[in-house]
C-alpha cells in the first residue's frame, strides 16, 4: 500500500559536504566574521548594492545563530518574540547610528555609524543581564547576555545596511525621506524579524541540523534582496542608476533559487521518508 520511500542510504553523506558552504561552522567565528565584514561594508555607502546584499546576508546569518542558541533552551513564549526583540533594538540602534553619522562623515564614508551598533550592543547586554539575573526575570538561559548583545548588533547592522541600499547614502534626512516616511521601514522591520526567526522556527524539532537551518536564512535573504531591488528601482536613488537595482534583483533571485532547491532537497532526503501518498500509522 505504501509507496517505497524515495530515500537512498548513501544520500546521508552527500548533504553534509555540500552544505556548510564557505563559512566555518563554529558559532563564535561565524559571529566575528559576519560582524566585521558587515561593519566594514556599512561604512562604505558608495559600494554597489550587491556587495551590501552580501553584507546583509552575513548579518542575518549572525542573528539567526543567536536566535537559535537562545531558543534551544526554551523561551516559554516561543521563538518569534526574540526575533521581534532583535529588530526592535535594531531600529532604535539604527536611529542612533544615523544621527551620529553626520559627525563622522568623510565624503561617502560614515564610520560614526558604528557608534550606534556598539551602543545597541551595550543595551542588549544590559537587557540580557536583567532578563537572566536572579533577582529579576531569571530566565536561566546560559549566555543569554551575550546572545542579546549579538542580537542588538546584528539587528542594527541589518537595518543600517538595508537603509543604505535603499537610500544610496546614510545621511539622516535622506534616510527619513526615503525609508521612514514612505513606510518602507515597515517592510524592513517585518522581514528582518522573519529572517532571524523563521529559520529556527521552521526547522524546529529534535532532528534539527544547523547546516540545514542556515540554508533557510540565506534563502530568505535572497527574497529580501529581490524586494529591496524592486524598491530601489521604484525610489530611484542609487548613484549607479537602474543597473544597481536590477543587479540586486538578479543576485537575489539566484541566491533564492539555489538555496531553496538545496533546502528542499536536503529536507526530503533527510526526513524519515518522502512518499507520494500513503496511509498513516499509530506508534504506541
Amino acid at each position, binding site marked *: 500500500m505504501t509507496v517505497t520511500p524515495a530515500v537512498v542510504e548513501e544520500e546521508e553523506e552527500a548533504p553534509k559536504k555540500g552544505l556548510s558552504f564557505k563559512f566555518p561552522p563554529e558559532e563564535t567565528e561565524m559571529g566575528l566574521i559576519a560582524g566585521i565584514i558587515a561593519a566594514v561594508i556599512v561604512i562604505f555607502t558608495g559600494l554597489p548594492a550587491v556587495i551590501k546584499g552580501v553584507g546583509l546576508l552575513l548579518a542575518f546569518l549572525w542573528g539567526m545563530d543567536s536566535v537559535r542558541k537562545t531558543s534551544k533552551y526554551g523561551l516559554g513564549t*516561543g521563538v518569534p518574540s526574540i526575533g521581534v526583540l532583535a529588530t526592535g533594538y535594531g531600529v532604535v540602534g539604527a*536611529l542612533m547610528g544615523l544621527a551620529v553619522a553626520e559627525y563622522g562623515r568623510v565624503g561617502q564614508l560614515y564610520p560614526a555609524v558604528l557608534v550606534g551598533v556598539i551602543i545597541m550592543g551595550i543595551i542588549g547586554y544590559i*537587557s540580557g543581564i536583567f532578563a537572566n539575573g536572579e533577582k529579576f*526575570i531569571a530566565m536561566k538561559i546560559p549566555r543569554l547576555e551575550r546572545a542579546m548583545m549579538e542580537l542588538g548588533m546584528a539587528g542594527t547592522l541589518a537595518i543600517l545596511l538595508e537603509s543604505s541600499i535603499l537610500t544610496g547614502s546614510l545621511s539622516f534626512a535622506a534616510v527619513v525621506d526615503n525609508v521612514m516616511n514612505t513606510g518602507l*521601514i515597515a517592510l524592513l522591520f517585518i522581514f528582518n524579524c522573519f529572517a532571524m526567526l523563521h529559520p529556527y522556527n521552521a526547522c524546529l524539532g529534535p532532528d534539527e541540523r544547523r547546516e540545514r537551518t542556515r540554508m533557510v536564512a540565506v534563502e530568505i535573504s535572497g527574497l529580501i534582496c529581490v524586494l529591496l531591488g524592486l524598491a530601489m528601482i521604484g525610489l530611484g536613488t542609487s548613484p549607479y542608476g537602474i543597473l544597481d537595482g536590477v543587479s540586486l534583483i538578479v543576485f537575489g533571485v539566484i541566491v533564492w533559487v539555489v538555496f531553496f532547491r538545496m533546502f528542499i532537497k536536503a529536507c526530503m532526503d533527510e526526513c524519515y521518508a518522502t512518499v507520494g501518498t500513503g496511509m498513516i500509522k499509530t506508534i504506541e
Partner: protein
Amino acid sequence: MILIVGCVVIGGLLASLGAHLLPVGGAPAAMGTATGIATGTVQIMLGAVLTGLFTAASVATFTDNLLLVSLSGALGATVMICVVMFMANVLYAFGCGVVPVSGRVEVDPITKEPQTAYKTPQTDGHGVPNVVFVSGTMGGFIGGFGGALMYYALLNYAHFSAGTAAVVAFSIFVANAILAAYNIRGTIEGFHDPKFKRLPKALVSSLAVSLLCGIVVVLATIILGGAL
C-alpha cells in the same frame, strides 16, 4: 529633553504593566485548556497597541493635547481587546459548548460566581469570565495609553515625522512587551493570578531598558538639532 525621556520611561512602564494585566492563555487556551485569550502575549499586545497607535495618529493630526491623544490611543486598544474577548466567549459558548470559567480561583472576585463546578476537570479553565474580562480591559487601556504617549512625545517633543515616530515608538514598546512576556512565561490570567506578583521584577527591567532607549532618542534629537 527631560520630557522625552520621561514620556518614554512612563510609556515603557505602562507597556510592561499592560502586558501583565492582559489575560493570555497561549496555545492551551486555543484547545480549551486554559483561560484567557488564545494567543501569545506578544501577539495580542502588539495588535492592541497598533490599533491604538492608528487612532492616536489620526487624532494627532488635529489636536495638540497630550492627554487627548493618549486617551484616544488607549481607547482604541481597549475597544479592540473588548471585542476580541467578547467574540471569543461567543465562540467558546456556541462553537465548543463550554462555560467561561477561571481555573485559578474558586470564586470570581468581582461577581462572586462559583467557578469550579462549571470547569472541565483536568483543565485549567476555559473562556473569558468576568474578572478576566475586566483585567483585559484594564490591560488594553494601560498598554494603549503607554504606546500613544510615546508616539506623542516623539512626534511633538522630538519633532520626528509621523512614520518615524510610529516605528520608533513601536520598537521601544516591543522591547518592553517582550521582556514582560519573558517574565510571564507563557500564560497569565490577569490581576487575580498568582503570577501577577512577579510584576515588580519586570517593571525594574523595563525601567532600565526604557531609560536607556529614551536617552538614545534624546541624544539623536540633540545631535540632529531638532531637524526631523
